[in-house]
C-alpha cells in the first residue's frame, strides 16, 4: 500500500506541493476575527482549527456579484468568468457536500458557463472538522466529494484521494508521506438533514407566525448558506454606450423575490418562509425530494433573531388558546 500519512510537522511543505496545482486558498482569520477562506500567502495565516467560515466556499464558484454579460454596440458577450487554477484547502465535509449540491444545479444541462469554468479549475482538499453546538451533522461524517481528503489522526493526517487530481497530488507529495495505520472507512457521506414532507410548511406550528414576525429579512441566512444559490439579474447601461448584466445573490425572504409587475406571488413574509422551507428541505425540480441542508449550522449562527427552520419539523405543539 502506498504511503498516505502526512505528519503535521510537514504540513507547510505539503501546502507548497499543493501550490503546484493552483493558487492556494485556505481557512484564515481576518483582521476583525472572522473566519473565511482566503488566499494563503503565508502558511502562518492558516487556521485549520475553525468551526465554519462566515461565507462558504460557494463564493469561489458563484461570486456574490458577477458580470455575466457585456453588451457593446449591438451584441451581448459573455462576461469574463475569472477562472484560475485554484486549490481550496481545508474544506469541511459539510461544505464539500454543499459544493456537490451546487454542482448538481449548475453543471446540469445546459451547464452554467461561469460556474463550470471555475469549478473545472478548482481542486478541493477536505479536512476533518470538529462540530460545535451549531452543527448538526452526524458525528464523523466524511465527504468524498473532493479530490483529496485529510482525515486528522494522531500527529498527522490520513490522505485519501477521490479523483485523478487527488492522485496527482499524492504523487507530487510522495516524498512527504509515510505509511500510516489504515483508516476506518468513512462512516457516511451526504446531506445531513433528511428531506421533509412538503405539507409541513402548512402546519399550524406556532413557530411559523413567530418567525414571520421576527425575521428582519437581513438576508444573512441565505448569504451564508453553502447551498443557497438564488440569484437576481440586473442590467446597467454604461455611459460610454452598451451595458452590463450582472448576477447577484438573492434571498427568497425578500419581498421582491416573488414579485411580478402588478402582483406578488409570496406577498407575506410567512409565504416566503414557507418557500424557503420548501426549497431547502424538500427541493425543487429536478432535485425534488432532496434536502439541500448540509448541517453546517451557519444559518442558525448568523441569524440575529435565532430563527432555525428545522425546529418546525418537530411535532406541532398545540397553540394555546
Amino acid at each position, binding site marked *: 500500500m502506498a504511503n498516505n500519512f502526512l505528519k503535521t510537522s510537514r504540513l507547510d511543505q505539503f501546502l507548497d506541493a499543493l501550490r503546484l496545482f493552483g493558487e492556494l486558498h485556505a481557512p484564515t482569520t481576518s483582521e476583525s476575527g472572522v473566519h473565511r477562506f482566503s488566499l494563503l500567502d503565508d502558511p502562518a495565516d492558516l487556521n485549520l482549527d475553525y468551526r465554519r467560515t462566515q461565507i462558504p466556499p460557494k463564493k469561489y464558484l458563484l461570486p456574490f456579484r458577477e458580470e*455575466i*454579460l457585456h*453588451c457593446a454596440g*449591438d*451584441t*451581448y*458577450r*459573455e462576461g469574463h468568468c475569472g477562472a484560475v487554477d485554484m486549490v481550496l484547502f481545508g474544506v469541511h465535509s459539510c461544505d464539500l457536500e454543499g459544493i456537490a449540491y451546487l454542482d448538481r*444545479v*449548475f453543471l446540469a444541462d*445546459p*451547464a*452554467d*458557463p461561469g460556474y463550470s469554468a471555475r469549478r473545472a479549475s478548482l481542486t478541493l482538499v477536505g479536512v476533518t472538522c470538529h462540530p460545535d453546538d451549531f452543527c448538526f451533522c452526524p458525528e464523523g461524517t466524511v465527504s468524498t466529494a473532493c479530490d483529496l481528503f485529510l482525515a486528522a489522526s494522531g500527529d498527522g493526517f490520513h490522505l485519501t484521494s477521490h479523483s485523478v487530481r487527488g492522485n496527482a497530488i499524492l504523487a507530487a507529495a510522495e516524498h512527504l508521506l509515510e505509511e500510516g495505520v489504515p483508516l476506518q472507512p468513512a462512516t457516511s457521506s451526504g446531506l445531513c438533514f433528511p428531506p421533509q414532507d*412538503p405539507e409541513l410548511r*402548512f402546519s399550524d406550528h406556532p413557530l411559523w407566525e413567530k418567525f414571520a414576525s421576527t425575521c428582519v429579512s437581513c438576508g444573512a441566512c441565505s448569504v451564508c448558506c453553502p447551498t443557497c*444559490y*438564488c*440569484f*437576481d*439579474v*440586473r*442590467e446597467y*447601461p454604461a455611459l460610454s454606450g*452598451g*451595458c452590463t*448584466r450582472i448576477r447577484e445573490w*438573492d434571498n*427568497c425572504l425578500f419581498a421582491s*423575490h*416573488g*414579485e*411580478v*409587475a*402588478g*402582483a406578488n*406571488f*409570496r406577498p407575506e413574509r410567512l*409565504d416566503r418562509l414557507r*418557500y424557503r422551507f*420548501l*426549497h431547502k428541505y*424538500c*427541493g*425543487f*425540480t*429536478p432535485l*425534488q425530494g432532496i434536502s439541500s441542508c448540509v448541517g453546517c449550522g451557519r444559518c442558525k449562527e448568523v441569524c440575529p433573531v435565532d430563527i432555525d427552520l428545522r425546529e418546525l419539523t418537530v411535532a406541532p405543539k398545540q397553540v394555546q388558546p
Partner: protein
Amino acid sequence: MKQPHHSPHVPYAAHLVERRDLSDDTALFRIAPEADALAQLSSFVPGQFVQLSVPGAGEIPISPADLPAAEGTVELCVRRVGHVTELLHKLEPGAQLGLRGPFGCGFPLDEMAGRPVLLLAGGLGIAPLRSLLMHLLRQRERYGDITLMYGAKQPRLMLFREELAALAAAGGMRLYLTVDFAPEKLEGGYSCAVGLLPDLLKGFRFDAASTYAAVCGPPPLYRCLVADLERAGVAAQRILLSLERRMRCGVGRCCHCGIGQKLCCVDGPVFRASDLKGIPEAL
C-alpha cells in the same frame, strides 16, 4: 436543436422589424432574430416562452404570440408595465434586441390531436393563445372543434379584434367575445357579450369529456375557470393553464418562479390543472 458552443446566458442578436400598437399600453413587436436563434426557434411549441433582452434595461420572459420562424420573425405582444417593457415600448424599428429560447414546456399538441380545443383568454392572455390558435388552424384537420372565448375589460382593450373576427368568419373556429363593461359602442359588426369570461362558459355546450381547455389570463381568472371547467366535466388533466411568474434565468436556476416544488420556467409555463392540485399558491 442544440447549439453546442453558445452559452446559455448569451442572447442571440435580434432586431425590431415592426411594431403595431394594439391598445394604449400594449403593442405587437415583430422581431427578426439572427439565423442561429431562428434555428433554435424551429422547435417552438405554442405556450413556450422566450427571454427577450432590451439592451440597457434587461431581460424578460415573453410568450410568442405567433408561430415564430415562419417568416424569419417572431411576434411578441407586450404590455408596458415596468422597467424593461417601458424601454421596449420606446424603441423604433431597427433597434437591437436579444433573444434566448424557446424555454419551458408548451401545450401538449400531440395529445390534443383529434380532440376539440377550447381556448379561454383573459386580457393579455390572448398572446400565447394566439400562437396556439395559429397552430391549430394551420393544422386544422388534426384537431376537433376549435373555440376561442376571449374576455377583455373594455372593447378598446380587446386585442387582435379584427384579426380574430376574420379568422372566425373564415370558418375554422368559433369565437366568443366578452367585455367587463362597454362604455363605448362596439364597432366592427361582430357580436360581443358584456360580462365575465366564466359567464360565457356557463351557457356553452360542448363535449366536455374529450375537450382540451387552454387557459391564459390574469391570476384571479384561473381559480374560477378551473372550477367551472371541472364542473362542466373537463378532466383536470385536460385543463391546461399558462402561468406567469417572476423569472430571471429561464433555465431553472434563479429560483424565483417556484410553484410548489415545480419551477414555472422548466416544468411550465403550461401546467395541467391536475398537476397544480394541492399547491395553494399556484393559482
